[in-house]
C-alpha cells in the first residue's frame, strides 16, 4: 500500500483552476482514487458538477486523457474506449496497461445512468466505475435522486408545511453492483485517505469490472461550512448511515467504527436535515435511526464469521 509520500510523487490528475465550490468533495474523490493508480489512467465523466466545473472551454483541469459524452452514459462511453484499447492491444499498437476510470455523480449513476452502468459491468469491461455520491442532483440545484437519504431536504422533495423532505429511503446501489457478481465492489468515504486509496489499489489490481460508491459531502447542497467536508464523511461512517465496506469476489469485509454513534450526531450538522429538529418530527429521527440500524445489521450478517 502506497504511503502519502509515495503518492505525492504520482501525477496529480487535476490542476488547480477548476470551478468546483470551495471545499467540494468531488475533486478529493478524484485525486485520491486516481493517484492510487501506478499505471496511466484514462477518464470518462458523466455530465454533472465534476465534468461541468473541470472542463469549461478552453480550460480543462484534467492532466490525464479525459472524455465527456453525455449525462447517462459514462458506463457505455467507457465501454467503447476500453473496447478500442483491447483492439489496439491485440494489434500490438498499445502495450502498457491502462486503468480506465469512469466517474458519475449519484444522479448520473443511480438514476439515469443505471442501465449504462449495469450493461458495462455485466459485459466485463476492464474498467472502474466511481460514483461520487453527494446524494442529490447538485449541479442543477439540489434535486432528489435515488441516492438521497430519507428526511433530506431537496428542491424536488422539500421540507415544507406538510412534507418533511424525502419520504423514501435511498436504494442500495452498492448491493445492486454486488449482485452483478463483479470481482470488486466497494462503498467508501473521503476523509480516510488510506482506506480509500487502499480500496482503489485493490480495484486497480483487478482485471475486469469494478465499482466504487464514494460518499462525498457537498457544502452547498447539504449546508455546512466547507472546512468540514472530510469530518462529515467520517461522521457518516461513524453513525453507520453510510457503511464503508468492500466485497471481493462475493466476500464481504466491513469497516467498523470504533464507536457507533447515534445518527442524530450526523443529522444535526447539516442544513438539509434542520427541519427534522422541529418539534413534532422526533418520530422521523427515530425512524431514520431504526432504518440505519436495520440496514447495518443486515450488512453485518453478510460478513462471514471467523
Amino acid at each position, binding site marked *: 500500500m502506497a504511503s502519502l509520500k509515495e503518492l505525492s510523487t504520482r501525477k496529480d490528475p487535476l490542476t488547480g483552476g477548476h470551478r468546483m465550490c470551495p471545499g467540494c468533495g468531488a475533486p478529493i474523490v478524484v485525486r485520491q482514487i486516481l493517484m492510487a493508480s501506478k499505471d496511466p489512467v484514462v477518464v470518462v465523466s458523466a455530465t454533472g458538477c465534476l465534468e461541468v466545473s473541470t472542463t469549461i472551454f478552453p480550460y480543462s483541469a484534467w492532466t490525464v*486523457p479525459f472524455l465527456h459524452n453525455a449525462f*447517462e452514459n459514462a458506463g457505455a462511453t467507457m*465501454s467503447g474506449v476500453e473496447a*478500442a484499447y483491447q*483492439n*489496439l492491444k491485440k494489434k500490438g499498437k498499445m502495450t502498457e496497461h491502462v486503468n480506465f476510470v469512469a466517474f458519475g455523480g449519484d444522479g448520473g449513476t443511480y438514476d439515469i445512468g443505471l442501465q449504462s452502468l449495469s450493461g458495462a459491468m455485466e459485459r466485463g469491461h476492464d474498467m472502474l466505475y466511481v460514483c461520487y455520491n453527494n446524494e442529490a442532483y447538485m449541479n442543477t440545484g439540489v434535486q432528489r435522486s435515488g441516492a438521497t437519504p430519507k428526511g433530506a431536504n431537496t428542491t424536488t422533495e422539500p421540507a415544507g408545511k406538510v412534507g418533511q423532505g424525502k419520504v423514501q429511503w435511498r436504494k442500495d446501489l452498492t448491493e445492486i453492483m454486488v449482485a452483478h457478481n463483479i470481482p470488486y465492489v466497494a462503498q467508501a468515504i473521503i476523509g480516510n485517505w488510506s482506506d480509500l486509496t487502499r480500496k482503489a489499489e485493490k480495484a486497480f489490481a483487478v482485471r475486469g469490472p469494478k465499482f466504487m460508491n464514494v460518499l462525498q459531502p457537498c457544502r452547498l447542497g447539504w449546508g455546512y461550512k466547507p472546512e468540514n467536508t472530510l469530518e462529515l464523511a467520517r461522521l457518516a461512517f461513524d453513525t453507520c448511515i453510510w457503511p464503508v465496506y468492500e466485497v471481493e469476489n462475493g466476500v464481504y469485509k466491513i469497516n467498523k467504527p470504533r464507536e457507533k454513534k447515534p445518527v442524530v450526531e450526523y443529522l444535526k450538522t447539516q442544513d438539509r436535515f434542520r427541519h427534522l429538529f422541529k418539534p413534532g418530527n422526533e418520530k422521523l429521527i427515530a425512524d431514520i435511526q431504526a432504518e440505519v440500524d436495520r440496514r447495518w445489521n443486515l450488512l453485518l450478517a453478510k460478513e462471514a464469521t471467523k
Partner: protein
Amino acid sequence: MSKIVAKTGNEAMAEAMRQINPDVVAAYPITPATEIVMIFAKYVADGLVSTEFVAVESEHSAMSACVGASAAGVRVMTGTSSQGLCLMYEILPIAAALRLPIVMCDVNRAISGPINIHCDHSDTMAARDFGWLQIFSENSQEAYDSLIQAIRIAEDPRVHLPTMVTTDGFIISHCLDKIEILEDKDVTEFVGQDRKANNRLLDLKNPTSVGLLDLQDYYFEHRVPVAQAMKDSKKVILEVADEFAKKFGRKYGLIEEYKLADAEVAIVALGSTCGTAKVVIDELRAKGVKAGMLKIRVFRPFPAEEIVKALGKVKALAVLDRSDTWSAQGGQVFTEIRSAFYEAAQKPKMTNFIYGLGGREIDLPQLHTVFAALKNIDKQPVVQYLGVRE
C-alpha cells in the same frame, strides 16, 4: 477477382463490414437491422474479423460506446433502425460535434407510433439535422458500395463527420438480389488498413480533454465547423466515387438522373422506390411520354445546386416523400427542394406525394397515377397522400 453472389441488403452490408473489418462495433438488435449485427457477430465468432464486438444493452449505449471508441482513435461501425435510431438521437449530434467518423448501417423503418416494423424514411429523415452525412441506397449493390465508400468519406480530414448509409427495411434489407462482391484485398486497400485518427484519447503522451462544456462564448464557434465540413463533404463524396468508379467500374454521385435530360414530367424519389419508378418511366417513354426521374442518393449534405440544375427544365414535378415533416407543408424532400428552387429563374411546378408510410406498398399502377397527376399539375394540391385509404 470480384464475384457475383446472391445477397439480401442486410447480408450485403454485413459482408461489406466484414471486409472493412472495423476495430470496434457496438450494436443492439432491432428489426429489420438485426441481421446485420447477427451476421457480423458470427464473423467475429468465426475469427473472420479482428473487431472488438460490444453487445451493448441499448442503442443509446451503442452510440455512446461508438463515441468512446471513435474518440479513442479507432475505426467504428454500428447498425440500427427506427426506434433504435431514435434512442440514439441524443448522442448523434455529439458524434458530429466531436468530428468522429463513425459509419452506421441504417435500415429504414417507420418510427412509432403506432409501432410498425416496415419501411418508411421517417427514422432517417428525423435525424437529418444532427450533422451526419446521409446516403440512401436503391438496392443491395448500392448499399454494399456506399458502405465501403462511406469509410473513406467520413475519415477524410476535410470531412471528419459520422455517416449513415441507409437501405429500405424489408424491401431491400430482406430481399435477395444479385450483387458483385469485391475481393477482400481490394476493399482493404480502398478503405486503408487503419484509420488515420487526428485526435486520440489513448495518446497517453499527449493527453487531451474531449467534450468540454461551452458557455455562450464558444458554442457557436464549435458548431459552424460542422456546417463547413458538411459543405466540404460534397467534393469528397464525388472524389471517392470517382476513385471507386475507376477501380471497380460502378459510378456514383450525389444524385442519379434517369432519362431526365429532355424530361418534361419527372419525379424525385429516394431508395427502393426508384427501382420501381425506372420501370414506370420506361413504360411511359415507350408511349412517347417524356418522363424522367431524379434519384437523390446523398440527402445530407443536400445537393441543392445539382438538383436545381438537373430539374430546371422539367415542367411538372412530383416529389415523393416516404415520410412527413408534420408541419402541414409537406415532406422533408419536398420542402428542401422547394427551398432549393427559390432563386432559380426556371423552376417546375411541383406537387408533393407522401407515400409508403409504415411499409404501405408502392407499385407500378400507383406511380402511373403520379405521372397522370402531373399532366394536370395546375389542379394538384401542394401536398397529397398516395396510397392511403380516406
